[in-house]
């Protein structure tokens, strides 16, 4: 799809270096810009379904762009940090969504690679194969933070998790087709305003990071020991909440 080494027209003058992990770290600006493009696209999509009657063509084009970016991010060095799991698309969901939601602009400016990529378990292996819509659904809803958190902490039935993401995207496109009178209101009512609060974003990120470290050890046995990780994550969650409260 994207030939590495070619000059990208969008980002003027950026040279490209072959992608290794080290190389990846050495060219933060391209990935920074790609990330900012992704974030910009997500904001546009969210603004989309807050408008009165969103322009469907525009929404589709932006969503396709988001998918493109995510696909590239899976193909180049971005996900190489995780070598413990196969690249199931469903686990990709988690990676991508958390990445998007939890990376604050501050982090980006510093060029830090928040190791959130390593935080995810592959509890969804063995489930369905790649579905592009899931990638879309994980990033296009303002409700995803809430859903994601619940998914993270509970690590429950992967079908259900995916269902949450799908539901988010459903709501976006279905507001356009007028499924129920309350759809738009529901969408608005479920928007968690704290999503836009930097504190919440940072909080979520910190929690994820911490949890991730713990969970790395449970990777191999994840599929059969969901309940175990549930307990673990619950405990972690409490720890983190306490930490945050104490800090603030």
């Amino acid at each position: 799809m994207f030939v590495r080494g070619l000059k990208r027209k969008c980002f003027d003058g950026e040279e490209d270096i072959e992608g290794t992990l080290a190389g990846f770290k050495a060219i933060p600006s391209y990935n920074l810009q790609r990330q900012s493009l992704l974030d910009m696209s997500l904001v546009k999509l969210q603004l989309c379904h807050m408008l009165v009657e969103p322009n469907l063509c525009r929404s589709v084009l932006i969503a396709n762009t988001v998918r493109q970016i995510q696909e590239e991010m899976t193909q180049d060095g971005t996900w190489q940090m995780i070598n413990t799991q196969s690249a199931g698309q469903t686990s990709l969901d988690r990676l991508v969504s958390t990445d998007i939601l939890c990376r604050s602009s501050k982090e980006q400016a510093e060029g830090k690679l928040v190791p959130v990529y390593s935080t995810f378990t592959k509890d969804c292996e063995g489930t369905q194969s790649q579905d592009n819509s899931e990638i879309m659904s994980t990033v296009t809803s303002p409700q995803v933070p809430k859903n994601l958190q619940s998914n993270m902490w509970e690590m429950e039935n992967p079908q259900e998790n995916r269902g949450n993401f799908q539901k988010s995207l459903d709501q976006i496109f279905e507001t356009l087709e007028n499924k129920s009178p309350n759809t738009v209101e529901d969408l608005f009512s479920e928007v968690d305003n704290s999503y836009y609060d930097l504190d919440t974003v940072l909080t979520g990120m910190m929690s994820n990071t911490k949890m991730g470290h713990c969970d790395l050890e449970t990777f191999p046995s994840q599929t059969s020991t969901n309940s175990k990780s549930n307990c673990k994550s619950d405990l972690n969650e409490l720890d983190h909440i306490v930490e945050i409260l104490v800090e603030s």
Partner: protein
Amino acid sequence: EALVVSTAHLEGSEKHPYSGQHLSTCFSLSIHMTSECLYPMYVHIHTYKGCTSDIISTVEFNHTGELLATGDKGGRVVIFQREQESKNQPHRRGEYNVYSTFQSHEPEFDYLKSLEIEEKINKIRWLPQQNAAYFLLSTNDKTVKLWKVSERDKRPEGYNLKDEDGRLRDPSMITMLRVPVLRPMDLMVEATPRRVFANAHTYHINSISVNSDYETYMSADDLRINLWNFEITNQSFNIVDIKPANMEELTEVITAAEFHPHHCNTFVYSSSKGTIRLCDMRASALCDRHSKFFEEPEDPSNRSFFSEIISSISDVKFSHSGRYIMTRDYLTVKVWDLNMENRPIETYQVHDYLRSKLCSLYENDCIFDKFECVWNGSDSVIMTGSYNNFFRMFDRNTKRDVTLEASRENSKPRAILKPRKVCVGGKRRKDEISVDSLDFSKKILHTAWHPSENIIAVAATNNLYIFQDKVN
């Protein structure tokens, strides 16, 4: 190039039909260019200036070019009529004056979705004239209307049951009967809605197209195309449906559609992925399978995250001959031969200097602007708009192109409308404008070309410019 300027005249101002503000139907600028010039077109300009809310959203000449219709964001339609040639005032030939104005669509509220339906006129299409009256279709996002525009220069007088003021008379007071007679009156142009085609589109209508049989027309929204009979308003046939069963899988929408100018069974529609499908309605009732599929292979060296967005086709138009189709995407205009599906036969760069600015244009949403494109009467020249009130013309035969500007600042009486140039490199010449100085809020999305003469109408936000060549 020798530029001869002929006499200009300042006409009296005319009141704007809606706001009462004064229009300036002023300036005639005549630019007479000799044939050595880059572009053998003379332009004679009329400017109609509206008040700020009347952003023009569509422009269309009728089949003879006698009438020019504009639709605006406020749901109004203004029709201009070409003045007849007169020996007394030869320089007034070809001027367009306001003929009729009416409110076509009103804002509506969809209670089911709790959403407003804009009254903005997306498209106007004329029907060919079959009697003394004129008929046009106008559409907003959801509803198509057929309007009849007719002249009235007589009125009946001498009714029995009502008096001259229209008040009903007491029947018991009537002692004798009379036959009403028609008496002349001042010419009045009235527009009446003859048909309302509603409730057939879930998504936003982007195109309407009158069929060459003059009995049917189609309306296209983001996901579906419907076929209508002019006489039947409560029913339409769905002929294209690209809505996926699962809306999550939606990756492509319909962006424009048009009937073939001669073959009433053939139409094309374009998509947001840069493809064009030609369909034959004889093949099946639901034209989900195209007869032809036009797509240009992607240039890998130009690939970026914006490739798909800029490949989205914003307009598709058949040539008058019916042999070619023209498509407009964000940076180019392409001409396709109906017999060759794998690539266009001609590609014209409209404003390639924007290619390095796509990121910013994505950020400010300009990348989603939908520019239209038009053929001239002989299919030899194509025209499309750009930013900074620039519009471009491409001569298909000579391969020459020109950039012109629709701007009042540059249009003093006697002023010469000269070709503009955008400077991309470092050194900017005196008359050039640099890419960074372009005003992206001044976009020319809608233009129209007279069916047989070199008269063009250019909509620049809320101003309508009419340019004309002057035959010696």
